[in-house]
């Protein structure tokens, strides 16, 4: 892990570290999609903590910014961020997979702040298009963000949505790709290669920026440049590391969905804070 402790972004680093600890604690007693959650943390923390016009007081305001989390399996990152933003009570994370709450492996609108449920990949780009078109019709200034996984880009509807976003010149629409290089069980480039990804989106009419998705300075610079070009939908490809923050699971195809023992969770939390790597024995890859 190479943290970027620049003073300007120290508050974001601090939040991201707490969100990562929330995620690790959810990777037991049933488990969660830990790798894809850890890769998306910095993007989500930046968006909710520093960038979006979206907070507890305006969740139903039609002029708010919208964030659609299309790669819904990284929901621990979203809920961890919600906790740090005061949108979700901390103790509710302990209700993970309980019938008494709505905290499960994919986001749902029973949780305040979730704009739309996801889990089936390739859906929310089109939902975001509908919202973006309506904002355009009504002359609104708010923006619509849709966070996608890179594996999710296998789904044809992502590209269908890109065609339509281009046709309707939706420069209020931003696709953010969490480019963590892995789909469920394999490296993307070993299964369904996506590169050159920037050029692919550009050929669909997007204005594209590619950044290090763990460097808050680069993230900040890219998002503050929105709108990139008038009349074009935008794509931010955030190069990330699956499992970011935990060297013992980073970039490992077999650490996708993990269900750790309580002891392993303790070790991983120490590892997150810079202690030696955890000793993991759990057979953690569960194909779902």
């Amino acid at each position: 892990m190479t943290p970027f402790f620049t003073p300007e972004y120290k508050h974001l680093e601090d939040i991201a570290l707490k969100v990562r600890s929330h995620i690790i604690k959810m990777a037991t007693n049933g488990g969660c999609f830990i790798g894809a959650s850890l890769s998306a943390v910095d993007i989500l923390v930046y968006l909710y903590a520093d960038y979006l016009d979206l907070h507890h007081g305006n969740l139903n305001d039609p002029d708010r910014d919208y964030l659609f989390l299309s790669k819904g399996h990284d929901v621990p990152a979203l809920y961890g961020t919600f906790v740090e933003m005061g949108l979700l009570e901390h103790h509710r994370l302990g209700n993970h997979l309980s019938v008494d709450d709505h905290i499960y492996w994919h986001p749902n609108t029973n949780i305040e702040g979730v704009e739309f449920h996801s889990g089936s990949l390739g859906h929310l780009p089109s939902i975001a298009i509908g919202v973006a078109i309506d904002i355009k019709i009504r002359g609104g200034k708010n923006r619509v963000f849709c966070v996608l996984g890179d594996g999710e880009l296998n789904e044809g509807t992502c590209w269908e949505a890109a065609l339509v976003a281009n046709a309707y010149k939706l420069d209020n629409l931003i696709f953010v790709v969490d480019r963590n290089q892995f789909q469920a069980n394999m490296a993307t480039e070993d299964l369904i290669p996506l590169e050159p990804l920037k050029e692919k989106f550009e050929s669909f009419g997007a204005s594209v920026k590619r950044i290090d998705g763990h460097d808050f300075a680069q993230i900040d610079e890219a998002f503050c440049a929105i709108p990139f070009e008038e009349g074009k939908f935008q794509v931010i490809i955030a190069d990330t590391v699956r499992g970011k923050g935990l060297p013992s699971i980073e970039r490992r195809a077999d650490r996708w969905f993990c269900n750790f023992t309580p002891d392993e969770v303790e070790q991983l939390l120490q590892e997150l804070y810079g202690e030696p790597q955890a000793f993991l024995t759990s057979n953690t890859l569960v194909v779902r």
Partner: protein
Amino acid sequence: MTYEQLLTIAALAEDKYIVMTAENRALVRNIPQALGNRFIDTGITEQTMIGAAAGLALRGRVPVVHALTSFLTMRAFEFIRTDIGIPALPVKLSGFIPGFLSDGNGPTHQALEDISLMRGIPNMEVYAPADEDDLIKMLPYIWSTPRPAYVRINTRTTPYVHADYEPGKAEIISTGSDVTILAYGLMFEQSLQAATYLAQEGKSVGLINLRSLKPFDEQALLQATANSKLIVTVEDHFLTGGLYSIVAETLLKHKTTADVLPFALNEKWFKPALLPALMKHEGFTGKQIAEKILGYQLQDEHQEIKLAAFAE
């Protein structure tokens, strides 16, 4: 009043309505000029159109979406189920050329499982008007509700003048002690002819235009089974999952049974041809339906069946 005129009036009266199409403009040819940016054509992208419709509904709109029924209900099925069904958003699905109305297109375009698929989605309502008059009488209610709905669009004209639409109720055309025919959509007209033949042959005939398959008018069915010796279901749909299945489910639910003769497509697609020819080939004309119920041939000529108005 045509479908397009009704939709134009409704959408001009209330700006909550957005008219969408996946480049199927046959029913909405003049809407772009009338509505401007509240008309959205997403191109040949049924899935993206449905997702975008859900997004528009999140913003308080009521999208009325158009596509050929086979692609709307099957290509986009998971989007309808997941993005409209789960949140129960008020998106109104207009499925074009369902059932036999796809006439010469071939099995790719034959939507014969649309009722089955759509009624299987929690929160989704399913309507099948008998003709244009019925359609125009039903749509204002269907579009006014805050619920998702699928409409098996049928813009054909018949001489029959329907009663006003009463939500959740079937239209009881007649009652009879020998046989009651249950029909919906395109097959209403042939069922009406069949009922006329049967009456000429001295039978006491009931006829019910179901109008809504979900919700289903259970009382209309139960009264028919109590009053008639035979129930006949007529549908241009697969035998599985449509009206015949609904009748079976409803009778079982009420711990009763009946003699039921189904007219439906049993484990097969229909022969692609112009509508009048294919209906005769498949045995779905009024005369053929009557003959099968009677068990003997009639001397009358087939009544003329109008060609389908559109070939897509």
